[in-house]
């Protein structure tokens, strides 16, 4: 299944956002997520089913002004 992660097209096997995060090595990482422009909280990730063409954002703390 092809999805877009942080702007890049990727083939993924994960059924849920939680699985995807685990697969990418973000299991315990300090990241936040959104799918198709909507926030998905940490606790919702396991319930959030992924579909082809989903646009997924995975973000972390960074410097800002």
């Amino acid at each position, binding site marked *: 299944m092809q999805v877009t992660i*942080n*702007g890049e097209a990727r083939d993924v096997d994960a059924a849920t956002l939680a699985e995807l995060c685990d697969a*990418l*090595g*973000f299991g315990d*990482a*300090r*990241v*936040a*997520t*959104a799918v198709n*422009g*909507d*926030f998905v*909280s*940490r606790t919702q990730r396991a319930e959030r089913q992924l579909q082809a063409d989903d646009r997924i*954002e*995975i*973000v*972390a*703390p*960074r*410097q*800002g*002004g």
Partner: protein
Amino acid sequence: MNDGSPPLTHDAAQETFALYGQAFSSRLLLGTARYPSPAKLADSVRRSGCEIVTVSLRRETAHAGEGQRFWELLRDLGVAVLPNTAGCRTVREAVTTAQMARELFDTSWIKLEVIANDDTLQPDVFQLVEAANQLVDEGFDVFPYTTDDLSVAERLLEAGCQVLMPWGAPIGSGRGLANPYALRTMRYYFPDVPLIVDAGIGRPSHALAAMELGYDAIMLNTAVALADDPAEMAHAFAATIDAGRRAWRAGLMEERDMAVPSTPVAGTPFFGFPET
């Protein structure tokens, strides 16, 4: 200069000011971007005595751990964290970014930026107000990056914002207060709302001009981060802003058209004689 030079401290008698119920002594809010190194950033925060820093969130590369390291740096600094929505162009982007930031940084504070264009990075005031309404409804403490427009300010306050952050000049331009007259009017118009000049501050005299107008605090980033010696510059800004607050409270003199002797005229030697 940095080594051994003590941080700016705030004496006990000094007034504090409140943002969403929290009291602060330092009136400098410092951005965390564009420093030569994390160490220089940390040094700048410490040397300035700054109590609030702004941060952002950005796409994370797997395994990089950059976010985690930055998070630990923030924790060690022990300052309040104000996440921003920099780069957002729509209400929805800004709202989702705010929601992600709340989870990531564990704070209901959000510096709300909805940008109208790349040339000025000015707020899109229509989307700003709409996003502020949504975020306040969701329980956020919104710090809106806005202009000096009073009709916009009134809607932000109606939305529930308890602080306003009007720009001085475009972000990163370092031009200082482009419209001091409008900022002065804004201060008179909202005497009891915390007002923070955000963006456009290039040198301490710019920050001081805002403090002398009675502004409550100053938010800046580039002028410190890109200085040859960021920590020294951070210290200079912090000291200036603190001094500006003191000066405003101590009573600034009015300017006059004509000269007035400071040394008393009475008793001047030779007075009353033909020129000798």
